[in-house]
């Protein structure tokens, strides 16, 4: 549209600044979404992406594996519930480990049933077949890594071999290893040789065919009042910290979203008022209201799209596998589409006031111009 783009070309600085503001806002929103998702995945990826649909903690565990202890009686009550296809003891704790020459923390999760509690999909390597083998989170381990659990006191350290890796399976923002229960217990004894029996942290359950996981969880809770059974999705969503992270970010997004219509609205209102006289002249010369309104909308869309492109570009740069403070930020096309559409809508809504002004121009005013 001639009018629309001509004006943009005459005042490139102004329009670029607006596009920049929109771009920065979009980038911030997408960036923070990536952080939010990355954070949540680093906290509970292991839970969300493992193979057991139902997780049973002890109530006192407060939805953390490490804090939860399942006594023998509670375990018996759990296993007696109808509709269970398989149930497995699962233990988890944080250990100090060494790979090559680097020492770090790692979460080790041991399960007595390879089909329950391990990552549902691998991104490399194979599943463990023998004791001493494990699947590792792929951001921290590579296939073939030899992980030594640092021993305490006079015990011998033990070594675990990473034979497979998986994506998005961290627990509590730590490198995570999935192995069998025997290897796990060996690790515990390596750190504390005098540890008495190793308690069971949780029971992972697979419902029988046709049984709904959340129904099964309810049944288990009824049968064992000290148990806290939840589906794996609920376990992930209600893990300590996750809800808080979500809540905080919601408020932040809402505030950023508010800024968009305000900024675009402000901009277009001002430039419309500034060129009110020229617009009136155009109308007097025979331009149709639809043409002028169309030019405005074209500008809004053009500038917003430019801003969106800039914002998405920046977001793509930052999420190109970047790690911020240990979080992997991923480029999410669905998210981009949703927010880009949202911003476009917000920008148009913001410019409605200017649109109204354009529609109200009366060509007769061209003859009685203001004098000074």
């Amino acid at each position, binding site marked *: 549209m001639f009018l629309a783009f001509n004006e943009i070309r005459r005042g490139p*600085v102004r329009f670029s600044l607006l596009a920049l503001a929109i771009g920065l806002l979009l980038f911030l929103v997408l960036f923070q979404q990536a952080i939010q998702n990355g954070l949540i995945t680093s906290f509970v990826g292991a839970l969300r992406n493992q193979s057991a649909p139902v997780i049973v903690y002890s109530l006192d565990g407060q939805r953390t594996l490490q804090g939860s202890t399942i006594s023998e009686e509670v375990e018996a009550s759990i296993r007696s519930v109808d509709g269970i296809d398989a149930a497995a003891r699962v233990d988890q704790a944080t250990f100090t480990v060494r790979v090559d020459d680097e020492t770090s923390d790692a979460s080790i999760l041991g399960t007595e049933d390879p089909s329950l509690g391990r990552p549902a999909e691998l991104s490399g390597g194979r599943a463990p077949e023998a004791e001493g083998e494990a699947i590792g989170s792929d951001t921290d381990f590579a296939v073939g890594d030899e992980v030594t659990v640092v021993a305490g006191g006079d015990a011998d350290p033990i070594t675990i071999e990473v034979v497979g890796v998986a994506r998005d399976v961290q627990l509590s923002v730590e490198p995570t290893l999935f192995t069998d229960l025997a290897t796990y217990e060996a690790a515990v004894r390596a750190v504390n040789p005098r540890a008495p029996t190793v308690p069971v942290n949780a029971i992972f359950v697979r419902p029988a065919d046709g049984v709904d996981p959340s129904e099964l969880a309810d049944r288990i809770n009824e049968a064992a009042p000290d148990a806290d059974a939840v589906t794996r999705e609920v376990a992930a969503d209600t893990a300590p910290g996750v809800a808080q992270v979500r809540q*905080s970010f919601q408020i*932040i997004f809402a505030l950023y979203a508010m*800024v968009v219509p*305000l*900024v675009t609205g402000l*901009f277009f209102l001002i*430039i419309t008022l500034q060129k009110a006289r020229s617009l009136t002249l155009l109308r007097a010369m025979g331009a149709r209201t639809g043409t002028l309104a169309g030019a405005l909308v074209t500008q809004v869309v053009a500038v917003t799209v430019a801003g969106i492109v800039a914002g998405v570009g920046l977001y793509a740069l930052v999420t190109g596998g970047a790690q911020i403070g240990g979080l992997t930020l991923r480029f999410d096309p669905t998210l981009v589409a949703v927010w880009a559409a949202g911003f476009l809508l917000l920008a148009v809504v913001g410019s409605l006031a200017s649109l109204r002004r354009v529609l109200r121009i009366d060509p007769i005013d061209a003859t009685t111009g203001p004098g000074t």
Partner: protein
Amino acid sequence: MKLALKELRRRPGRFIAATAVLTVLAVLLMFLGGLLDGLLAGSTGAYRAQRAELIVYSSTARESLIRSRVDAALRDAVDATDGVEATGGLGTVQLGARPGDDPESRDLISIALLGYELAPRGLPDEPPAEGEVIADSTLEAEGIEEGDTLLLGPARREVTVTGFVDDTGYSGQISLWGSLDTWRSVTADNRPDRTFADDAVAALVVRVDGDASEVADRIDGATDGATNTLTIDEAIEALPGVSQQRSTFNQIIGVTAAIALVVVGLFFALITVERTSLYGILKAIGASSATLFGGVLLQAVLLALLASALGSLAALGLDALIPPGSLPFDITPSRLTTNVALMVVAAVAGCAFSLRRVLRIDPAAAIGAAS
């Protein structure tokens, strides 16, 4: 300058919209800052309250209080080190607590029980008697009062709350402060795999006589590397999540300030276009570009200050609305000052976009120019 002020007073309309946008950004900055400060305070209170200079972990603990173990022999070595004035044991266990009158409650309160010897600020020099604890004031939001009991962990060990203390959170949990004996026995009952002997502790806080980092090195030397001694500030940085939260939030805050800069730049760029003829006349009758641009700066700074004031008020209102305990949120005076400074700097920098245009306005164009 008075010219710029008069314009603000006589023609407020055009400035109101920009102030509205800047206010929303100021609220954002306050919210982000308040969230960060709240998260940090809740994580680091227990350490900031310590009235000591160093903390000694075992070297296998990787700077985590939860994994650290200091036995009697190690402690003796630390005590004997030159420059060590006093040492106090410290230990923690994280459990779920039920109210004393509801042992079967399914709603657990996340607490961290801390045993101490050298009293942190706000706590009595003599730790509470066995079975008694002083709780962080955030516990009150859960409806617990002085004299109430709590049942800790699956073993439901009973403790009585005998008082409250402010700002001693540990790792985002509500802290309960008691004697080392209380801590050891509660841990033994609830975490049998993590028992501590009667003379063992998780870590030591140390009061020094002399330069803290030197003494720290000496301690680690004296124990032959079995300990890892940090200053309290270093230990705070090493607390889980602290440095990542800080850097992430600061990046976000930085970009938000950049947006404020762009908004100011945008707004004043628009206004300057409108003022071309006015500036032309003023320049013709003898106004320098410096004077005119100074007026622009003054207006930008005033808008930024106004937006900051409104934004701070709104944030304080938000703070009052958020029920305590649901979101970590803390408005500190230093955060307020920082944000105001950020807004002002952003506003001043944003004016740079108008500088060229103001400089280029040609007074000669004022003659013979139709308005």
